[in-house]
């Protein structure tokens, strides 16, 4: 029975939990000392053991199993042959800061400028000087003690661990208002909570930042483990999702793909996927490269509070 402390890769809250490995396989346990979630988990976190028990990805080239180095060399060889203008590097936030940094560096070395974490469309619509608002984060205790909270085009059910903070805030007398897209609001002194996801309307994101004055605090909740880190590391610049769909992109290196985008990748001429498990996307890939499972990685992410946290605490 081995207890490995880790964080949930389901969203930017990065709830603390334990991965427990024993003769029955992998399951999760509740890490009550984790400050962001105090041991509580949503259904995704509860079922994480099943996710981690998926078939690990093997290194392959054209569907044939090879050793990792062979697959890596072949991937580099083929990526070097592509036209950088129609090649992209996509990492949608399921990777650590260290992995994203290395991924960005590799793209640079190959002369590929089309990099994206799935949020380029939204980020590029925000003036550069204001982009720090996108990943600032808010200590969750501050939500409980806020005078006013505005939920702008935000459904807390997508981020269940935020619900208890909002309930506690209400009990503490916080004025809690839901605001629909385009509706007027008074944001002075408020904590504004909204969502920044690949499907978010870029104009709404920009409007939230522009309309917030200096007294307001903005929290953009995000799906996946580390979109905060990807944005902070500047892993954006080109709307790859749109470009893949419009066939502008012919070759793609996809790092730790989330589910829900499978339909995009069918028509690519070259698809290299690095992932920790087999999936519909890895089946489409020309080359696959295995990653360690998330809880086996040594690295950091940026959580909902804007803090850099280790995937596996080193003091454990």
């Amino acid at each position, binding site marked *: 029975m081995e207890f490995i402390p880790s964080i949930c890769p389901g969203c930017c809250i990065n709830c603390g939990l334990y991965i427990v490995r024993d003769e029955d396989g992998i399951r999760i346990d509740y890490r009550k000392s984790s400050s962001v979630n105090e041991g509580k988990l949503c*259904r995704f976190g509860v079922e994480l053991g099943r996710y981690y028990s998926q078939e690990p990805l093997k290194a392959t080239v054209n569907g044939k199993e090879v050793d990792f180095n062979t697959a890596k060399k072949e991937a580099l060889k083929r990526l070097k042959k592509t036209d950088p203008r129609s090649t992209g590097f996509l990492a949608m936030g399921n990777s650590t800061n260290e992995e994203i940094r290395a991924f960005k560096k590799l793209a640079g070395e190959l002369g590929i400028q089309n990099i994206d974490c799935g949020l380029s469309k939204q980020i590029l619509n925000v003036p550069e000087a204001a982009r720090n608002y996108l990943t600032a984060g808010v200590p969750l205790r501050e939500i409980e003690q806020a005078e006013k909270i505005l939920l702008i085009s935000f459904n807390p059910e997508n981020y269940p661990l935020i619900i208890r903070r909002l309930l506690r805030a209400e009990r503490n007398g916080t004025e809690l208002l839901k605001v629909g897209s385009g509706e007027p609001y008074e944001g002075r002194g408020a904590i504004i909570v909204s969502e920044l996801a690949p499907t978010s309307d870029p104009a709404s994101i920009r409007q939230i930042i522009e309309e917030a004055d200096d007294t307001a605090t903005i929290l953009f909740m995000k799906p996946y483990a580390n979109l905060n880190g990807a944005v902070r590391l500047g892993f954006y610049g080109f709307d790859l999702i749109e470009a893949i769909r419009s066939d502008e992109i012919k070759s793609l290196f996809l790092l730790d793909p989330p589910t829900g985008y499978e339909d995009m990748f069918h028509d690519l001429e070259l698809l290299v996927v690095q992932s920790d498990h087999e999936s519909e996307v890895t089946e489409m890939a020309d080359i696959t490269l295995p990653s360690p499972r998330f809880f086996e990685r040594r690295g950091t992410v940026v959580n909902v509070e804007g803090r850099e946290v280790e995937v596996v605490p080193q003091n454990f």
Partner: protein
Amino acid sequence: MTGQSYLAWAKDPEIRKRGGSGGFVTAALIAGLKEGIIDEVLLVRRIDQFESVPYLTHDPEEVKSASSPQLAAPLNLSSYIPRGVKVAVTTKPCDARAIIERAKRGRFELEDVYMVGLNCGGTMPPVSTVESVRNLFGVDPDTVTGIEIEGGELIFKRDRGEDLTISIDEAEKKGYGRRESCKYCNTNIPEMADLACGNWGVPSDQRATFVEILSAKGEELFEAAKKTSMIEFEDATQEELEKRLKIDRRMRELANRRWDEVAGVLDERDRLAYYINEFSRCIHCESCKIVCPVCVCEADAKCLDMGQGNNHYRISLYNMIRLFHLMDSCIGCGQCEDVCPVDIPLTMIHQRFERRMEEMIGYRPGFDLQKPPLQKPEEGMK
């Protein structure tokens, strides 16, 4: 020997010093391994003062270096008992009650489990305990080396700098201190375990463990400790016995008073409205079921079959079935409430049902191997 009480302590000065109260528990566990009475010991591995994880070992040296119980690491160890081996485990009363309930439900043989019970005045949620050190004393929580509740005082021990002390009442008025379920738990001495150990009744100038032998398995461990010369002991005096019981009585009175306060928040004329409101927040993550030590149903559980979140009952069938299932079995350990992501006071609600049932039918879960009266024996159940 069963029913006898002693003051006992480890002969090894290092164990005696490290032990919470004289090191008897560590000495008895090591003796149990050395004498082959047990194969494994389930204990907790301390990460820091606010975090521990369960740990199984057969190595006496590892037992020796294990930590004394941690107040700010509210685990229930019953879920980690291995099947098919003789194992000793240190138990708070709620651990011991859970072990008995799990044994009834066929998870393991109770004869294989040696419960070394520890008196318990409650455990504390780790995150709010960390915050209490920072907010009540303005001190870095990393400087804390131990946490104790002694004589109504909550004490944070530190190697460097003075200990930090606040009355437990005051800490709890400020929103810190023990878990809510511990405040109204009125089972402080683990009388259902094989041994009940602690420092209640021990003269303040003596570093010893008050040990009550409660079963033949308890006798075995005590005898092993004697035989291996791991301990020294003396009979507990009448005065010490009475002192221990007085502390227990006082704790139970406080717990019962707290229960009256907590249970009194419900409007007796409209309890249903309260339950509907509280359960309306449920997101059906099923964590309360997963951590519930007395629930051993797995993927085929009725509550999961019938309790999808999208049913249109005012309380989801998931919660309704759990209420029914636990009304004669909830031991009030608080694990469900600890992990509920939407802060439903689950333990209080389940205890409201269970305590009423207890009054009506005279059955108290987790004290013996009697079957829960409302549940038909299922396959695999004794």
